């Protein structure tokens, strides 16, 4: 089946690649969306935490000599390190600024992107790093006559797991319910005697944990470099916007649109592949300026 030189199998392969990219985009942007929806903070430093997650993953995996165990250990530890950093950030500084204007909060988190970028440069240097996936996740298997990387399959399994975890967290736990209530009316939740400040801290840390997890998962698939914070954060923001601000499922939908248009763009017109997702975002916003699903803002 040929259409303009693109075979059906090649298209399917790119769709799967796009979906595995979607996983990482979803994990990162769901964290951003959570913080945006509940705390109303446009956390620009989210991308920096993703970058830190990737660098810590590299270091931990390297410490264990890039073994299978090392990678798993890194996958567990790196997001926790990022969460710890974000806890200090939130309790130390951010929690004093909640009543400020959004632009000031934007400025504050941007200041931290500058600080984190230089700290990463100090600790890991300016060179790029690369990390191999453990042996059992390397190579590819045969899918309808075309090779499909094992690691992409691993990502395709991780994505739904994280989505399920987030759904359970927001719908089935006490903290999730309070957070959802606080997202709608913070003062009311405060008034009935719940310590909103603590819930905010917890939500912020969970959101940042997701940034770290995204960074850990992306580490074996690309070069770990300075500047990966800037690339991911604009993508994550656009995803959150087209999905509907603060809506986790919107983040999933937005990530799928972004990941798939990117992957198919590579097939159709490689030189301008990065233009496709931006084009998709603009089209979505021209039709539905408030995003596809219901926005909390």
């Amino acid at each position, binding site marked *: 089946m040929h259409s303009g030189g693109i075979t059906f199998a090649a298209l399917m392969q790119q769709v799967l690649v796009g979906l595995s990219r979607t996983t990482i985009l979803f994990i990162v942007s769901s964290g951003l969306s959570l913080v945006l929806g509940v705390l109303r903070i446009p956390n620009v430093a989210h991308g920096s935490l993703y970058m830190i997650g990737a660098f810590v993953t590299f270091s931990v995996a390297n410490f264990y000599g890039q073994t299978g165990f090392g990678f798993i250990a890194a996958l567990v530890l790196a997001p926790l390190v990022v969460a710890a950093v974000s806890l200090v950030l939130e309790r130390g500084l951010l929690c004093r600024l909640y009543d400020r204007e959004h632009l000031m909060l934007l400025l504050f988190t941007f200041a931290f992107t500058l600080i984190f*970028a*230089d700290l990463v440069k100090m600790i890991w240097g300016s060179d790029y790093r690369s990390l191999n996936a453990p042996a059992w996740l390397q190579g590819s298997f045969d899918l309808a006559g075309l090779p499909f990387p094992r690691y992409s399959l691993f990502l395709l399994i991780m994505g739904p797991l994280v989505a399920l975890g987030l759904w359970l967290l927001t719908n089935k736990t006490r903290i999730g319910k309070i957070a959802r209530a606080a997202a709608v009316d913070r003062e009311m939740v405060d008034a009935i005697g719940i310590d909103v400040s603590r819930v905010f801290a917890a939500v912020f840390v969970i959101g940042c944990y997701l940034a770290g997890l995204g960074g850990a998962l992306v580490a074996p698939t690309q070069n770990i470099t300075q500047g990966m914070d800037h690339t991911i954060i604009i993508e994550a923001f656009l995803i959150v916007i087209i999905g509907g601000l603060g809506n986790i499922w919107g983040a999933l939908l937005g990530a799928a649109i972004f990941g798939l248009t990117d992957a198919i763009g590579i097939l159709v017109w490689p030189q301008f592949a990065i233009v496709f997702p931006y084009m998709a975002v603009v089209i979505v916003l*021209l039709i539905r300026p408030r995003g596809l699903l219901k926005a909390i803002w």
Partner: protein
Amino acid sequence: MKPENTGIKKTAAALGTVAGFMLLALILPRYYLYLLALILTTGLLATSLNLVLGFGGMYQFHHAVFYGTGAYCLALILTKTGLPAWLGYLAAPLAAALLGLIMGLLTVRLSALYFGMLQISLGSLVWAIVYRWYSFTGGDDGIHGIPVPDLIGTSRGAYLFVVLVTGACLAVMYRIVTSPFGMVFTGIRDNPERCRAVGINVTGHQLAGQVMAAFFAGVAGTLFVTVEGSVFPDMMFWTLSLEILIMCLLGGWFTFFGPLLGAAIIVVLRTVVGSYTEYWTLVLGVVLILLIFFLPEGVLGMIRRGGDNAAGK
């Protein structure tokens, strides 16, 4: 004091300042002229953003795209066509204004936050195209060694050109802000619903503001080309947009000269701290955090408020 008198005084002060800056060209060494030219260019860019951000209350999140458009337009005319240079300097701000008109037509109907978000998306789309279109824009390499006319090609000539153009643009922008249009514009910032209710065309004013801001950003773009002789896609990347936004907030976004001050602080910080340590952004980050905690209205906003307090207000 009569209003005409203050007008004359202000004009005299403005002309005096421009003359003072031009005299500096005689005494300052090349490096400082270059630094001053960069500060003025960036200051013009930040002031053009503040026209809509501070005075119009519009969340102009991707202003750099107009700056980049102006710069690329001039660069392409100078390198790829045989057209006279002055035509390039004229066409570049107009191209930026045209992009401002197109983006404005699509975005002004939206409320503050969603306006900003659609603008980021559109701006990122423009960036992505410029970043990849190697045969036309030079892709991620940009365009270097742009042949600027001889008269303004030297560092001294470029500096004088930047001083004159920035001075003229700032004067025009000041006139706009203090004109009836500017007053209505500020009114829309403070209460869009009431303005609409008394029959003001809110989106029309916002569109006009957007086009003007884009025009002056385009002018700043041509100044950058004059000073640096090169363009690159980072000029329209979102990080620069955020950086200019920060200059406005830093200097004081409810004042006219605040953004100019904010631009000066950031450019000087980058150059001076950058010459001591490669970790200058760390210093900038810490400075910003201190400012947020201690000077939330920006440097000029704080000074002005201090003055009000002293006057017993």
